[in-house]
């Protein structure tokens, strides 16, 4: 323990862990899903599982936007990126996501002009600086990230930057949760709700999970204490027979979300009738497309994107892991044919993917031992 603060947190963490243990019925098995990839990363990084009784299992949900992107959308992006007039911009996380014919990093090595950007506003600046090139931004992310694309498109329209467009792959958080709740494979006891997404959408969108499905939800922050506190709040609900949406992260997440961000999303985007999710298949109204008012900035229209469908590699079991049916290390190719250096499936690419998180934090041996015993 390097700092007093950490030590105090460790004591507090143990105290919360003891309360959780006290509420746990040893004859039961509890399955709690953390929806958000940031939570998955933090859970592995901080060894949260080690603080919980063995009866509580954390299932890793579909909340990593890189991981749920189907191969066809990667291939579509690559097709745009290969056009000679295009400067293709994307977040760094996208570069190694496998498409059916390689990834963006390899396409860049073959000569395509692909540039990593920190922000969609950096992509817009590149468009301003290169008026004779077509600058395309590959937009990914849940409702946390979609407002930044929306505000960037507003700015592009105000400035009439005609050589800028967005290949929109934004997805929404509620439909995949509903799909998981409808899945017969999976029995869950409760959910740790996403933190940053909820700063935008608020807590109200999760109420259907309590009302229609009888599953408690606790929206949580990203620090280790936030996560075990959220587990404690869920366990209290289960023991007391309550079923509510609670907000552990109220210091950041307003119950109603961010009305400015929501208004901006409504102006710039509309819901797609359906969208394919890696491992989960097609889910109705689960993604955003650019609205008619901004159609001039829609790369799908500008480049007549084919919308190819590509099946995931046969050996890849990302779908089962995403649904929480398999643990990362139970996948046939985990750590062998599929590693962070050479990922087969998207869950190994992003540091927020369950497989990469598991691989990076060295729990493989211990986990395999547990499974084997």
């Amino acid at each position, binding site marked *: 323990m390097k700092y007093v*603060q950490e030590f105090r947190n460790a004591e507090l963490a143990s105290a919360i862990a003891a309360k959780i243990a006290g509420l746990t019925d040893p004859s039961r098995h509890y399955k709690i899903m953390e929806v958000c990839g940031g939570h998955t990363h933090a859970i592995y990084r901080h060894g949260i599982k080690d603080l919980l009784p063995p009866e509580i299992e954390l299932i890793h949900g579909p909340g990593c936007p890189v991981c749920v992107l189907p191969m066809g959308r990667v291939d579509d992006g690559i097709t745009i990126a290969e056009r000679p007039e295009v400067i293709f911009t994307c977040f760094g996380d996208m570069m190694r996501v496998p498409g059916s014919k390689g990834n963006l990093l390899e396409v860049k090595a073959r000569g395509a002009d692909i540039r990593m950007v920190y*922000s969609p506003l950096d992509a817009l600046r590149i468009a301003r600086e290169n008026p004779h090139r077509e600058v395309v931004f590959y937009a990914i992310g849940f409702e946390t990230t979609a407002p930044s694309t929306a505000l960037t498109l507003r700015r592009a329209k105000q400035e009439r930057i005609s050589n800028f467009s967005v290949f929109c792959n934004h997805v929404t958080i509620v439909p995949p949760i509903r799909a998981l709740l409808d899945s017969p494979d999976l029995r869950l006891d409760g959910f740790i709700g996403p933190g940053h997404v909820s700063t935008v959408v608020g807590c109200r969108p999760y109420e259907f999970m309590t009302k229609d499905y009888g599953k408690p939800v606790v929206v949580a922050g990203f620090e280790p204490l936030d996560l075990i506190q959220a587990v404690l709040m869920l366990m209290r609900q289960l023991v007391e027979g309550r079923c509510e949406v609670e907000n552990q992260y109220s210091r*950041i997440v307003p119950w109603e979300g961010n009305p400015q961000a929501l208004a901006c999303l409504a102006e710039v985007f509309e819901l797609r009738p359906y969208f394919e999710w890696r491992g989960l298949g097609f889910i109705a109204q689960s993604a955003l497309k650019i609205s008619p008012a901004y159609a001039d900035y829609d790369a799908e229209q500008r480049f007549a994107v084919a919308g190819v469908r590509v099946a995931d590699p046969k050996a890849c079991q990302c779908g089962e892991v995403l649904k929480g049916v398999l643990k990362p290390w139970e996948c046939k190719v985990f750590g062998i044919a599929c590693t962070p250096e050479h990922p087969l499936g998207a869950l190994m690419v992003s540091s927020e993917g369950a497989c990469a998180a598991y691989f990076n934090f060295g729990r493989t041996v211990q986990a395999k031992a547990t499974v084997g015993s």
Partner: protein
Amino acid sequence: MCLAIPGRIVEMVDENLQLAKAEIGGVRRTINIGLVHNEVEQVAIGDWVLIHVGFALSKVDEAEAQSTLRALEEIGAAYRQELLELHESRIE
């Protein structure tokens, strides 16, 4: 890109374009403050905000900002990568 990093507003660059300069992880970069600086709420120089892909996502108090920074430093590689990408950012 999934991280949100605390930064402190150090300068208003252009209120019409909703741009401000923030100090984040030791560097100063221009960010968009449209989501936290509007009819509903405002930010001022000295305020802390959580920044995600160049946009202030929400206002936070200093204690929360410091505690988030500590948690990010513990996360390590993903945070360092985010800072490297931020270094290259030149939002106008």
